[in-house]
């Protein structure tokens, strides 16, 4: 097999190549301008690396989630760190009748896996959480799957990216920023740096399919 043949295989992505994926507008013009697809890669897996919940990562995807719900697609939250607060989601324009929460604490399935309640991310070994997330991403009726994982193997990330492509969904991983250095097959990786001034986020684009237009951008939430 020559190098050319390998290059022609569809599964090989080369940095700088225009991506075939359509963009899902993020709702933030500054971020749309920085992303090659003009929005979130859709379908695709994105990683948002930030501090603990509260650093603005969820607000970054809310406009896209609202759009997906509007398009009658389901929003599946898998093992969120706290309870999503319905009035605030509604105020952000999200149709709550399209929201499903997979709450493994309630099912006591995760009791053995050591899922702590408040704020702690599920461990990578928690098979049920990952299973549910992958099923959600593979399901075409789902618009977006949200997960708050800790450490994940590269192979797992690859599986999740393929699941997004198979289901035509947006997979969002909210991860602690310490995983920024890990190589990842996700279509897009963002590192958030919260600014002391409320409602401003500095975003570093760590990786993006289709080439970078800008490495950094500032978004007013």
């Amino acid at each position, binding site marked *: 097999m020559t190098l050319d043949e390998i290059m022609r295989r569809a599964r090989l992505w080369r940095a700088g190549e225009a991506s075939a994926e359509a963009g899902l507008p993020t709702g933030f013009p500054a971020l749309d301008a920085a992303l090659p697809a003009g929005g979130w890669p859709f379908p695709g897996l994105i990683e948002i690396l930030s*501090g603990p919940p509260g650093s603005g990562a969820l607000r970054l995807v809310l406009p896209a989630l609202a759009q997906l719900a509007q398009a009658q697609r389901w929003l599946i939250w898998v093992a969120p760190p706290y*309870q999503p607060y319905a009035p605030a989601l509604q105020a952000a324009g999200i149709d709550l009748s399209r929201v499903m*929460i997979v709450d*493994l604490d309630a099912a006591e399935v995760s009791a053995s896996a050591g899922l702590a309640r*408040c704020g702690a991310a599920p461990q990578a070994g928690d098979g049920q959480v990952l299973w549910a997330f992958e099923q959600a991403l593979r399901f*075409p009726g789902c618009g977006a799957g949200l997960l708050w994982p800790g450490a994940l193997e590269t192979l797992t990330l690859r599986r999740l990216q393929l699941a997004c492509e198979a289901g035509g969904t947006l997979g969002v991983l909210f991860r602690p920023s310490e995983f920024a250095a890990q190589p990842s097959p996700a279509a897009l990786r963002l590192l958030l740096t919260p600014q002391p001034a409320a409602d401003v986020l500095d975003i570093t684009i760590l990786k993006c399919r289709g080439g970078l237009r800008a490495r950094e951008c500032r978004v007013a939430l």
Partner: protein
Amino acid sequence: MNTNERPDSLQRLVHPAPRAPQLTGLQETKSAPQPAPELWLAIHLSQLPLDIATRGHAERRACVLVEGGGTRQRILLANSEAVRLGIRPGMPLGAAHALGDVTPLPRMPDAEDRALAQLCAWAYQFTPVVNAVPPDGLLLEVRGSLHLFGGLHGLLSALRRGLRELGMRAFAFSTAPTPLAATWLARGRQAATVDTLAALPAALSALPLEALRLPSRQLQDFSGIGVHTVGDCLRLPRDGLARRFTPGLLRDLDRALGREADPRPACTPPARFASRLDLPWEIHHAQALATGMERLLHELGGVLRARSALIRTLDWTLHHRDGNAVRHRISLVAPSRDVAHLARLTREYFARQRLSSPVRGIELLAEDFEVRTTVETGDLFFCGRRADGADERWPQFVERLQARLGPEALKELAAVPDHRPERAMRLAQFRPSPRRSETKVAEQDDAHRRRRPRPLWLTRSPLPLPEQNGRPALGGVLTLGPERERVQGGWWEGADLERDYFIARDENGTRWWIFRELNGRPGWFLHGVFE
């Protein structure tokens, strides 16, 4: 001996096919014979006792069916794995053990009868005229079904696939215009497809007499006079045959050749499904139950198709070694008869279970048949994945998650018009039925409250915060924002609130939603996180 019948019988010998209808005399002048009005398909399950005993296991062992007791146990049937070891029917069990590792199984006539009855109910999906031929045969009248299945070939391949799904490994088919001829041909492994009455004598003539299952005494007598095949038998004079052997034999031959009517009672399919599968060797892990469960689900699928019905619940009973029978109920959100879906649900459900003791038998019960008169296209086009039709598969998706994670793991979220923060949302067990969008209604109700800042995350219950120098702390001392929101009320429900809510910032810049309790136990509590 029946002397009255003799002139009649003689006449029949002269006119071998009196059933040719008189009114179609004009057509009879054509040289091509008309196909008989009925076409019987016989299925001979030559290893039924072995197949039903071993079909619950994915593992294939060399198994033999034995009869007799003590040291005189002989092998009645051997499966293909046992035959490969050199084991043959008729061998003493001791000799078989010497040839290799083989599992002897006893005969279970009750289980065989039940299995045959289940097969009848299952086969009802192919034709409304199904008849059991104990102990190991089925008869289906298929003339009317041929068109539906695209001819005999299509029907046979559907049957073959279906029987394999049920775990039947050895079966032979034959078709003939009379039920008895079809049965004999199938037993004789002729794989014959006889379409006309005129072709029957030729097709039957080479058949060995063993296929008729005559008493062994009669068989010996026949072989004593050099009669080995049905053809030999037909050449004998009728009166002699009737005198020397039982008149029953003559009647059977007449029926097989279509000279005498052979009415068959039609079996009616049951209105509920109950089937049991015994496991000859015990199963220790829930995952290993999948093979047997799929067999039963395929049986159920056939019965549901036959009755054009759907079901909502699967009741599994596991019979354990310790004598306990444990029931497991799997409820479906939307009625279904899709075997692949039911099998997936069952697998996910039992993947969560740990067996208390080894399992010896599996039983499946399904009673709540919902008869649908409209044709379901779901079975046919299940693999189609249209973006607009995605919602049709949503209930099945939800069921799959619930089967594995437990029904209480899935939650739905709703906003409730209430000014008390924890009452303004409802987190309830998920119902996959489509809900109307609640946003618009709620929007008007609490438009005034939306001006108030609300966090995206709420803690499950307020968490008490430690204090440093009289100020709330979380890691370090929190900086309170300027706005204070007084929330009070609820005395009418016995829970009187009086709280002052603040937005507090920690040194990382994270904004927390905290409140000071003014009523009851004073102190600071954490209630939410802003993003």
